[in-house]
């Protein structure tokens, strides 16, 4: 696997993988590192990191262990990122593939819808979706997926538009193969690499969107999310700024990891300098 070797040769990819793996280990091992409910009352609220050896990262304004929330929050952020990205990528590919492959009126209609989604600031749509359907973790994740697909659709469409007239696709037409075969077997595998790379951008944005929602107190309060913690810390920002700062660093590192992995994938899968969009 030439691609795998190229991937491992890139220092960015290796660093990103290490960071991401660390976050995954934190998420997966959260119950082992910090058994019990991370949202439970652990001690006196607002203890500074280091002040009490029991709480290496201190406690928040609800008296919950910040370190426990960081570990359990890793799971939530990754899960939201992964599921929302999958939703966005599936919708985006389906719409982009059909629009790009068939062109004409189908394309016009689908692209009008995509344009509508892109013209509307995605965060405002997200706010509306969450206001309408409530802020459980499931609805938030689905809502993020729903507002994130348009760029994927555009990218897929662009790939399909250029690939569908390639000679090897035309050759398959001439061989009498069906559209389904052309889309799934011929075009899609070739259109996929840039989409996979872009998925890392979608994932980064999804994690950021969830944390922004949580910051506005619109995300699910029953899960230990990093954004929730930042939002909570905002009330004590001027005195106990660490409550917001620590989860912020966690988000930063995770996004960094995702982006670096994306960059590594890009270098490995698209040897030519591929544009991000």
């Amino acid at each position, binding site marked *: 696997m030439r691609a795998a070797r190229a991937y491992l040769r890139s220092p960015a990819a290796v660093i990103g993988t290490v960071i991401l793996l660390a976050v995954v280990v934190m998420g997966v091992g959260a119950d082992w590192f910090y058994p019990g409910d991370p949202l439970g009352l652990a001690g006196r609220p607002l203890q500074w990191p280091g002040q009490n050896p029991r709480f290496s990262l201190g406690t928040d304004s609800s008296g919950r262990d910040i370190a426990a929330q960081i570990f359990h929050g890793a799971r939530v952020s990754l899960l939201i990122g992964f599921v929302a990205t999958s939703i966005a990528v599936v919708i985006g590919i389906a719409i982009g593939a059909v629009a790009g492959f068939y062109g004409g009126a189908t394309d016009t209609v689908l692209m009008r819808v995509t344009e509508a989604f892109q013209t509307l600031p995605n965060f405002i749509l997200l706010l509306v979706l969450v206001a309408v359907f*409530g802020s459980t973790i499931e609805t938030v994740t689905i809502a993020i997926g729903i507002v994130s697909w348009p760029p994927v659709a555009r990218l897929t469409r662009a790939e399909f538009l250029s690939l569908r007239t390639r000679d090897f696709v035309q050759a398959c037409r001439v061989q009498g193969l069906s559209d389904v075969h052309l889309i799934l077997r011929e075009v899609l595998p070739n259109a996929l690499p840039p989409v996979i790379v872009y998925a890392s951008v979608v994932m980064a944005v999804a994690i950021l969107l969830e944390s922004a929602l949580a910051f506005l*107190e619109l995300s699910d309060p029953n899960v230990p999310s990093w954004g929730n913690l930042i939002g909570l810390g905002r009330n004590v920002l001027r005195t106990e700024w660490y409550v917001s700062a620590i989860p912020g660093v966690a988000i930063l590192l995770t996004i960094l990891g995702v982006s670096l992995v994306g960059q590594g994938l890009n270098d490995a899968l698209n040897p030519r300098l591929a544009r991000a969009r």
Partner: protein
Amino acid sequence: MTGPTRREMLLLGATAMIPTAAFAQETPQRGGVLTVHFATEQRILNPSLQASTGVYIVGGKIQEALVDLDAQGQPIGVLAESWESAPDGKTHTFHLRRGVTWHDGKPFTSTDVAFTAMEMWKKILNYGTTLQQFLTEVQTPDPHTAVFKYEKPMPQGLLLRALPDLGYVSPKHVYESGDIRQNPANTAPVGTGPFKFVTYERGQHVIADRNPNYWRNGMPYLDRVVWRVIGDRAAAAAQMEAGQILFSPYSSLTIADMQRLGRDPRFEATTRGNEGNVRTNTLEFNFRNPILADIRVRKALAHALNVPFFIENFLGPFAKPGTGPIPSVSTDYYPTEPMPQYGYDVAQANRLLDEAGHRRGAGGVRFNLRLNPAPWGEDIALWSTFIQQSLQQVGVRVEIVRLDAAGFLRTVYNDWNFDLATGWHQYRSDPAVSTTVWYRSGSPRGAPWTNQWGWKDDRIDGIIDAAATEVDPVKRKALYADFVRAAQTELPLWMPIEQIFVSVFNKRIRNAGNNPRWASSSWHDTWLAS
């Protein structure tokens, strides 16, 4: 903590909180601009149309009510100089102040009072529509007399306690033509007060200037009041420190910032001047859930919550444990005898839950409940988290359902789609105005802050109805004591925390907090030390 000791402490607290006007006598200085934190922007600024602190903080300086409260919390005439009531409680006569003019120069007369009462208080003003439900007409025998006629007896005490909030007068000549709700004066109010409205820039500020023709001679002292719109609490605290705002009313800063600024010698963080604006944190039960319909479960949940711990660690000095629906600041109606209380007792909670047949199952869980917290107030969020954390200890798993304001009201009070809810009960001078609706059955579905629990108690309904029309103050007080006892026994909802709104002043402000609803009052005697 045992019942009686706590009650004694509360009684002490209640008397201590009445402002005693113990200020050093300084000579007021004329001039200066008072900048005020304006936390939530308002749709309208006219307090005859909307009864809320967000309106009073601005409109209360521009328009005036018939009566206000004095430093001792007793009614004192403003636009009304004196009043008398017929013994049957169906007629109340107000003698109006002479020589008062509106900001546009027109004289203030009894027709303004009649128009405002019939067209605004009775039809549009929230709470007013309930209070004035049986008002049939306002007679104006002369320009300086207004006679209120009621179909059913209206206790004078109730009316006078309610009017400081629900008795603001608007000029008839400005409002008489066209739709009142779309009148431009709603956001550019015209009043008789010490300050004249200048401008309202959305998202930025409201400005009002000194009224040179104010009827209190030589007043007001301030040249101008500027309300700065600052939605973000942390930003507001920063501006307090920078001296860009001098006063933040109604607990609009974060708990942490209020405590921090309270320790700063430049500022004072206090409940003084807010005694008329008290709120209690609620725990509301949905009786349609058979688990919660069981009194043992409701009591067990109450016993599982360590309220003093919560107050000490999360709310700080501005809150105290509540004892029932009528808060301790209500000098007239706070019951003097002990009422049933539910102290922190996990063993008792577990016992009651076991008795009710809810044994611990897998993972130690007895049952699951949804909790809908109201989205206003940091304390509600902390309180709901605390409930979640505490009930976990007794095997009750709580899922918090976070909704915005509209969603909360609709889900809880209209769709009844909740198990537990928590928010604020705001006490407004008299239980009949703000409190009994939480317990009285028969509120139409969808009316917020009313009994929507699926709970009905004929005895309590009877007490409430009797008290509302009882003209004799002593009998009224006894009826309300019965009400509190019944409410605390049946526990259809629980009000375990009592909080007075906190004001944060820059100490340059003088005569600050010198009456129980100071933030809402007219500030005619407020001045700034240089």
